[in-house]
């Protein structure tokens, strides 16, 4: 019945024709995910089509003909409505939904669990059988798994991507502005600052912007909390609970405070954006954007690829912020083993890597392979002197590699024409202490030669930068999840990278994460309160100045009409 009404109200027809072609029995897996949220073949030759690979995987390993029916949504509310509209009622009064696997974000995931819309994960499936979900638990970061256990969601959901909330900003713009101090960007009031007028955008969505304003309104309280945690008067758990409580306040007083803060902010910003913020940052139209870390990485990458693009940075407010995540849930009536197999498949490090490279978001998968990917993509590489290539090899290197040839071999050394020396690019972490000391200044900073890359990652030149500080991003809390054999050497997951760039956006330090809360689901009353507040903020008070011209125009029209009619008579 619900479908019937929706048809008419939306003036559109949705046919769910499910043609079953092909030989043999075909099992369908209906996946419902965010737009652009899985690696597909984009024609560049670098990306992997994970959906096709999964179908192959099922065929090879289990002899199953699987067809993935993959559909996408743009907002969580759309997804929720779609699920509600397409559900069917079974005889016993329970509902069956039209999808096997859905990927909602934090608050919607909680809502779906609370409303009993999702199936429990089946952890009893044996190894080697379809749907043995340990692929996820073997590979996922312990940090993420523990987080889910703490909130009791591990029975219903697994994490796909996660991240933090913060500001993407363009330091080149701010350095010129009077009043800006370095470090301002790592505070909630950054976008409220007077010098940031008309430079920033915030999200045109109640929930995200509410979180931003809460952080701003309670920034002093947050700082206090962080202090007492550092001094030891609050335990880690107590601190985390307080943070969660603070970021989920929706009482009238908080909402009123947020309304006042947002009314001020509205006058200070460039505008509200839905999806244009990423592009506007990269092209330099705006200089601050409040964003999810995943979008931040995408923005930074886009700006880097653009020749005229700015060098952008990402900062999480020091007072404390939010962690977001997108998780896989199986709506009631789902094909549990097959859905779990899909999660299993996505959790394999090489697939998680393909996904991360394509989407730019941070996968929940930890471990060595993922860490090395992070180093390779975003670690600090410098130029060091190295041996000249052997005769013949240099000539060979001049030639373009033949088509189809793997570029696995060592990168060719770069010849510096001025000094006549050969240089190779090398990850700083691979250098020994001794080698590093050669670049060290008296004050502990370094002078490095940085490689310049073309778009195929070949070294085309180098430039010098002085007084560089090395930044070590300790990610042991995230990557060191595997119970390594005692014999195996314990690996240190610390990446040397540029602070505030892609790597620190993708993988925040433990310090930052400990200051982050998780957003919870607001009930109907709270949501209505938020929405009323949002309407007040969005509908400008300058609207009242419109009243006068409107009344004048309407009255003139009326008078004109009346006079014209009278004349006619």
């Amino acid at each position, binding site marked *: *019945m*619900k479908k*019937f*009404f*929706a048809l*008419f*109200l939306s*003036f559109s027809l949705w046919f769910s024709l499910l043609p079953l072609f092909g030989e043999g029995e075909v099992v369908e897996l209906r996946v419902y995910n965010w737009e652009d949220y899985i690696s597909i073949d984009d024609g560049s030759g670098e990306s992997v089509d994970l959906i096709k690979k999964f179908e192959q995987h099922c065929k090879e390993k289990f002899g199953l003909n699987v067809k993935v029916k993959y559909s996408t949504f743009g*907002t969580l*509310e*759309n997804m*929720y*409505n779609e699920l*509600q509209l397409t559900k069917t009622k079974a005889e016993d009064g329970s509902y069956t939904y039209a999808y096997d696997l859905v990927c909602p974000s934090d608050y919607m995931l909680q809502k779906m669990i609370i409303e009993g819309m999702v199936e429990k994960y089946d952890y009893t499936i044996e190894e080697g059988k379809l749907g043995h979900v340990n692929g996820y638990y073997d590979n996922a970061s312990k940090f993420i798994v523990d987080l889910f256990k703490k909130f009791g969601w591990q029975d219903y959901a697994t994490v796909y991507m996660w991240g933090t909330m913060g500001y993407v900003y363009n330091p080149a713009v701010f350095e010129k502005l009077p009043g800006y101090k370095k470090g301002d960007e790592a505070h909630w009031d950054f976008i409220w600052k007077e010098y940031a007028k*008309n430079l920033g*955008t915030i999200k*045109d*969505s*109640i929930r995200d912007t509410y979180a931003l304003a809460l952080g701003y309104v309670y920034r002093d309280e947050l700082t206090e909390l962080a202090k007492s945690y550092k001094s030891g008067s609050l335990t880690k758990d107590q601190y985390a609970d307080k943070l969660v409580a603070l970021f989920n306040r929706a009482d009238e007083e908080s909402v009123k405070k947020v309304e006042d803060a947002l009314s001020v902010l*509205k*006058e200070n*910003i*460039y*505008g*509200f*954006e*839905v999806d*244009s913020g990423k592009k506007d940052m990269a092209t330099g*139209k705006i200089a601050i954007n409040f964003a999810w870390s995943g979008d931040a990485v995408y923005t930074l990458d886009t700006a880097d690829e653009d020749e005229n693009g700015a060098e952008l940075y990402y900062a999480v407010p020091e007072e404390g912020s939010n962690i977001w995540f997108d998780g896989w849930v199986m709506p009631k009536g789902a094909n549990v083993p097959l859905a779990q197999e899909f999660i299993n498949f996505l959790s394999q490090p090489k697939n998680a890597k393909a996904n991360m490279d394509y989407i730019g978001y941070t996968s929940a998968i930890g471990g060595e392979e993922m860490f090395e990917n992070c180093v390779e993509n975003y670690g600090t590489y410098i130029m060091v002197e190295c041996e000249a290539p052997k005769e013949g090899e240099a000539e060979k290197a001049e030639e373009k590699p033949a088509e189809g040839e793997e570029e696995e071999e060592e990168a060719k050394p770069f010849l510096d024409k001025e000094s006549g020396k050969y240089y190779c690019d090398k990850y700083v972490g691979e250098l020994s202490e001794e080698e590093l000391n050669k670049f060290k200044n008296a004050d502990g900073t370094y002078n490095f030669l940085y490689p310049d890359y073309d778009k195929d990652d070949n070294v085309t030149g180098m430039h010098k930068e002085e007084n560089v500080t090395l930044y070590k991003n300790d990610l042991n809390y995230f990557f060191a999840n595997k119970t390594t054999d005692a014999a195996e050497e314990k690996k240190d997951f610390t990446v040397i990278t540029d602070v505030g760039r892609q790597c620190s956006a993708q993988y925040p330090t433990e310090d930052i994460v400990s200051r982050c809360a998780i957003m919870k689901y607001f009930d109907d009353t709270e*949501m*209505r309160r938020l*929405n*009323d507040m*949002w*309407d*007040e903020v*969005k*509908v*400008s*008070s*300058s*609207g*009242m100045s*419109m*009243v006068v*011209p*409107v009344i004048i*125009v*309407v009255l003139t029209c*009326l008078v004109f*009409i009346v006079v*014209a*009619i009278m004349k*006619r008579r």
Partner: protein
Amino acid sequence: MNGLKFSRKQLGIPYAVFLIAFVVVPLLLIILYAFTKKVPADKATFTIAGESVSFAVSNFSDFFSKSANIRVLFVSFGLAIITTVVSLLIAYPVAYILSKSKFNKGGVLLVLFILPLWINFVLRTAAMKELLYFIGMYKSNSFSFVNTLIGMVYDYLPFVIMPLYSVLVKIDKSYAEASADLGAKPATTFLSVTLPLSMPGIVSAISMVLLPTTTSYVISDTLGNGNVTIVGKIIETQFLTMDNWHAGSTIALVLLVIIFFSMFLSGKFTEEKDESATRGTLW
């Protein structure tokens, strides 16, 4: 062959079905949703689409008791009226010249003015944003309203030119000649002959622009950077973010009533005109 002959009534059946299915029933559903609200299952009078509801007028009192809602109506209609007036001021001379022009043989010039309509609406709006950015209209967020207005006028101009043109082109030249022969100056001729005769075109243009501009929030979101909120956006929020179809339908119904009222007024005005002129309206 005789078997294929249909009476007029039979030929009308598909249209009647179409109208009932896509106009009458949806309208009734909007009214139904507007006058009901979600209640706990034990207090429900009946259920629509699996949701227990009971009749209530509280949707309307909720709507009108919030000052933001009243303001958004003023902003929307203010924007809509200004858009309509500005569009008319621009379009009338254009339509007038086109209807007289010797260059407009075969309607080539007219097509040029209508051409933007054939390009995707979102694309047009995005292009307009780039253009406005280029000339510096985004230096301050206080320009948001003006930018939105420019976008609205640009997008709806063809809808104003078309009806005006089709009315103006049908006005018999001899009226104007007679007026000139009787000693009227060109200005007088225009004001007391051409303008009244073209009134049906103006009314039809207004009806094509006024309602859409109160609700086309894509333009205000894109060009106004989300700083201008109009009533269409509020309806969208109620449906999509709040999942409250009752409140959303209520706002849609309030809008509909206001529009009906204004159409009724302008309809009164054109009734007085003679038949031949009214026939000239395009839509």
